[in-house]
């Protein structure tokens, strides 16, 4: 088996390996707990290997890869197989890299963090199912398949959020999450049904080529955006997020951050690929001004993004529970991504519109890494002190030196301080939004300063101050947890020190996939109108 064969089958293997691993985990767990942990890490490690192999191929060649399940027949008049297919372009590869980094850090971190818990066979099975679901959502080129993987991710997430069943609030958060997820998924399914009833197809590329932007298509778009935006935690549909992020084990929260980003990917895929060809068509003419869908949607997203940033940051400022505080900060960070996408839509076709897309895409990976690292730090403090309330903490930098360093890296990164990765992506966002409207950029910068204030508060109350007598025996966390935090910190520093390299090689192909959906369509249906 040569390398090309492995790359060809990588899209399927990226989903199949964790899926198979999930079902084998309880069996391996019967033999030995350590063997099970090694097995899970190897499974996710192998998946990560396939992801990086595939991403390298996509980024270096600029090609789009498709993987048709069950052979190449029957085919339509247009020349593509009527099968479930995975289609991988720059955006898919980019998102898969994020999911794989978070998944790998999660399973390494879990080794020590979850050691004292029972039911770990179920825990690791659900983690692998969630990872498989996320990769499925990212890689699929089929609408119904997208819904199925969305459900797999949601159900496994719900159980993992409520994993600490001895804590009532965790169960409550899990319940809220499943209600929200089921509601969102129901409307997404409804949208898929609308599209299927009109175009008799579920393939994303086929639908993108056929879509007419009828009234029913508009309804489907609204349902898709609303359903996925709720899963992405956009204000005012974000309220499940602090509950879920705050109550889940920190290792789970790390993957939940990834799942949230994948929902955001769904919004991008549906808007730019499915409805991409209709975005710039004038809808109405008022005087000399023509109203286009990109302008309308862009302004709507900018408004939602500003509310998201403001509410996220202001709510984070008053929190005293460490994880809830990070969760609200994460809401604010999602706002920056949506702001960039909105600005890009409003200024579509201009150079700063493209810059906004690049800033937004870059911020997706930065947000996942920065917020993810902070959640791991919060988990490390909980592991060492059994505290989540900042009011109960103090002087921890004296006992937990490495954790403190990782927190500082996360703090600087999430607040967009140079030379961390968050600064580079926020710079692109500020400069592009300034071109749209300077007030938007000013609000965004002020909120970023507030975000810095939020985490300075955490740094002061948890890490600085005298050594508290109740924490005199506290030690830094085990090596596996430090390693997981170290992996993410390394990516943060690398992305921060070499931003142009990352933008050119990772972000630009993903942003180009958003701006131009023609390649995505022609790769599957060969440009022929069926």
């Amino acid at each position, binding site marked *: 088996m040569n390398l090309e064969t492995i790359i060809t089958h990588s899209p399927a293997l990226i989903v199949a390996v964790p899926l198979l691993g999930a079902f084998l985990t309880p069996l391996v767990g019967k033999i030995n707990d350590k063997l099970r942990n090694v097995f899970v890490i190897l499974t996710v490690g192998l998946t990560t290997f396939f992801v990086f192999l595939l991403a390298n191929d996509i980024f270096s060649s600029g090609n789009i890869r498709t993987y048709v399940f069950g052979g190449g027949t029957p085919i339509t008049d247009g020349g593509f197989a009527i099968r479930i297919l995975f289609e991988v372009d720059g955006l898919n590869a980019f998102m898969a890299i994020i999911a794989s980094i978070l998944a790998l850090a999660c399973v390494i971190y879990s080794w020590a963090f979850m050691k004292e818990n029972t039911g770990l066979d179920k825990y690791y099975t659900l983690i692998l199912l969630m990872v498989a679901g996320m990769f499925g959502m990212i890689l699929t080129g089929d609408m119904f398949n997208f819904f199925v993987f969305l459900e797999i991710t949601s159900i496994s997430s719900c159980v993992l959020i409520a994993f600490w069943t001895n804590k009532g609030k965790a169960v409550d958060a899990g*319940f*809220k999450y499943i*209600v*929200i997820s089921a*509601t*969102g998924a129901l*409307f997404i399914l409804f949208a898929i049904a609308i599209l299927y009833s009109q175009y008799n197809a579920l393939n994303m590329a086929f639908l993108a080529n056929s879509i007419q932007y009828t009234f029913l298509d*508009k*309804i489907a778009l*609204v*349902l898709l955006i*609303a359903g996925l*935006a*709720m899963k992405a935690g956009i204000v*005012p*549909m974000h*309220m*499940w997020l602090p*509950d879920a992020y705050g109550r889940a084990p920190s290792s789970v929260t790390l993957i939940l951050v990834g799942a949230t980003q994948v929902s955001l990917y769904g919004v991008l895929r549906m808007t730019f690929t499915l409805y991409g060809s209709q975005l710039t068509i004038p*809808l*109405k003419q008022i005087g000399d001004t023509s*109203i286009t869908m990109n302008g*309308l*949607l862009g302004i*709507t997203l900018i408004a*939602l993004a500003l509310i998201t940033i403001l*509410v996220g940051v*202001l*709510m984070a*400022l*008053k929190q*005293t529970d460490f994880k809830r505080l990070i969760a609200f900060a994460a809401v604010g960070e999602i706002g920056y991504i949506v702001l960039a996408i909105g600005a890009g839509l409003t200024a579509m076709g201009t*150079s700063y519109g493209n*810059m906004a897309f690049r800033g937004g895409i870059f911020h997706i990976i930065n947000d996942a890494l920065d917020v993810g690292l902070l959640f791991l730090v919060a988990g490390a403090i909980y592991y060492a002190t059994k505290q989540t309330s*900042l*009011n109960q903490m*103090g*002087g921890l930098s004296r006992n937990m030196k490495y954790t403190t360093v990782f927190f500082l890296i996360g703090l600087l990164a999430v607040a967009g301080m*140079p*030379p961390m990765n968050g*600064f*580079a992506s926020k*710079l*692109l966002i500020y*400069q*592009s939004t300034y071109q749209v409207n300077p007030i938007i950029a000013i609000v965004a910068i002020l909120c970023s300063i507030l975000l810095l*204030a939020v985490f300075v*508060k955490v740094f*002061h*109350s948890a890490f600085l*101050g*005298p*050594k*508290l007598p109740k924490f005199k025996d506290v030690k830094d966390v085990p090596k596996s947890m430090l390693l997981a935090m170290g992996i993410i910190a390394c990516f943060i520093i690398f992305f921060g*020190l*070499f*931003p*142009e*390299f990352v933008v050119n*090689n990772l972000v630009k192909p993903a942003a180009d996939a958003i701006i131009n959906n023609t390649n995505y369509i022609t790769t599957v249906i060969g440009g022929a109108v069926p």
Partner: protein
Amino acid sequence: MISIYDFIETLTTDSGFWNPLIWGVAIVIAFLIVYIIRGFGNKGYKKETEQTKVFLSGNPEYKEEKMHVKASNLYWGFTESLKWVYKVLDKMHTGNVSDYVLWFVIIMGTLFIILGVI
């Protein structure tokens, strides 16, 4: 093939640029200047002596753990002056899942009006 120069390229935007390596050099120079200025400082500082003790307007010093300002006391002025904002935000965050779904319906309805009707 990736070369070493790809890594040190400058991130350019429409109206500016960002290179962390140049920033790093600037920071090192700034620290050197600070270090030189520090050299001009008063050399009479003595560790662990009376001059390093906390002075609280003549009041007795608290125990070390009591001196630490807790998280809920930080930014009190900011949150107090924005009380009216927080009142609205707290009212919004009810913790009731029915309200979460209600917000979803409201946003969906708004999007319908913006994208569907226009």
